């Protein structure tokens, strides 16, 4: 019998709301992105000073991953397969603005989208495969195919995959934990359904 992969758990962060497996975990009306992210940080009882030095994209990735990894057991070989539309544009713009006076090294280190994967790997001691794709919209076919191939070829025992976008302080986060155990079959259709409708 062919091995099946499942969407074991998922997190969404959108419009001042944090959802875990479809249930509302947190919401507030804070208009400022950084203040909203700090509220979520406090809500999750995080104690990770490095968080405050990160760019918005990394903060979003850390918060979503925190929910997934504290709710589930995970291997250090867990793969991270993320995608978005805006790459690291937000950090790029902030860094560019800083160059008009004194270029900020702390901003410069976030001028690549895959830095968030490194931050998550450091926080959770992950040593597995990772990839960050940039596409116009959430390409469920690409993410499903790539993640399934990694799992099928036993490059990773499980994976966190999805969409992590930030542009002009507007954010859209949808990360899923893919495992050999779960209730929702890992398929393009189910991924799309969870992203758009759940």
């Amino acid at each position, binding site marked *: 019998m062919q091995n099946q992969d499942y969407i074991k758990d998922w997190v969404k962060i959108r419009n001042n709301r944090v959802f875990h497996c479809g249930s509302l975990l947190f919401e507030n009306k804070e208009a400022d992105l950084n203040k909203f992210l700090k509220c979520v940080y406090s809500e999750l009882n995080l104690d990770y*000073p490095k968080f*405050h*030095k990160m760019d918005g994209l990394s903060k979003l990735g850390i918060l979503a991953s925190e929910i997934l990894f504290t709710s589930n057991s995970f291997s250090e070989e867990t793969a991270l397969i993320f995608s978005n539309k805006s790459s690291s544009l937000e950090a790029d713009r902030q860094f560019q603005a800083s160059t008009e*006076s*004194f270029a*900020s*090294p*702390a901003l410069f280190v976030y001028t690549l989208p895959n830095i968030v994967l490194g931050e998550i790997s450091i926080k959770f001691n992950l040593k597995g495969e990772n990839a960050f794709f940039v596409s116009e919209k959430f390409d469920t076919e690409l993410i499903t195919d790539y993640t399934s191939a990694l799992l099928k070829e036993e490059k990773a025992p499980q994976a966190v995959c999805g969409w992590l976008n930030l542009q002009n302080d507007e954010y859209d986060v949808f990360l899923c934990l893919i495992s050999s155990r779960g209730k929702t079959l890992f398929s393009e259709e189910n991924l799309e359904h969870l992203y758009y409708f759940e």
Partner: protein
Amino acid sequence: MTNLHTELKKSIIEQLNLEDMQVEDIASDEPLFGDGLGLDSIDALELIVLLEKDYGIKLTDPTQGREIFTSVNRMAEFIEENRTK
């Protein structure tokens, strides 16, 4: 503690995003790196920028930082000796 010490501590907290930390939490003789404040290599670069931006001091030899950034006391001493603004 001089005004410069307090000013430096405020700048370090603000520049390095040391959230939840107050001026009084930083001892003037406390190591900034390693076991002290636990700053990292990117923070060291930010401190070099801080010296130039706020005090007009341009470090020509980056290895100087290792000796200057040992504590707030040492930073203040170096600034007093070399500041151009």
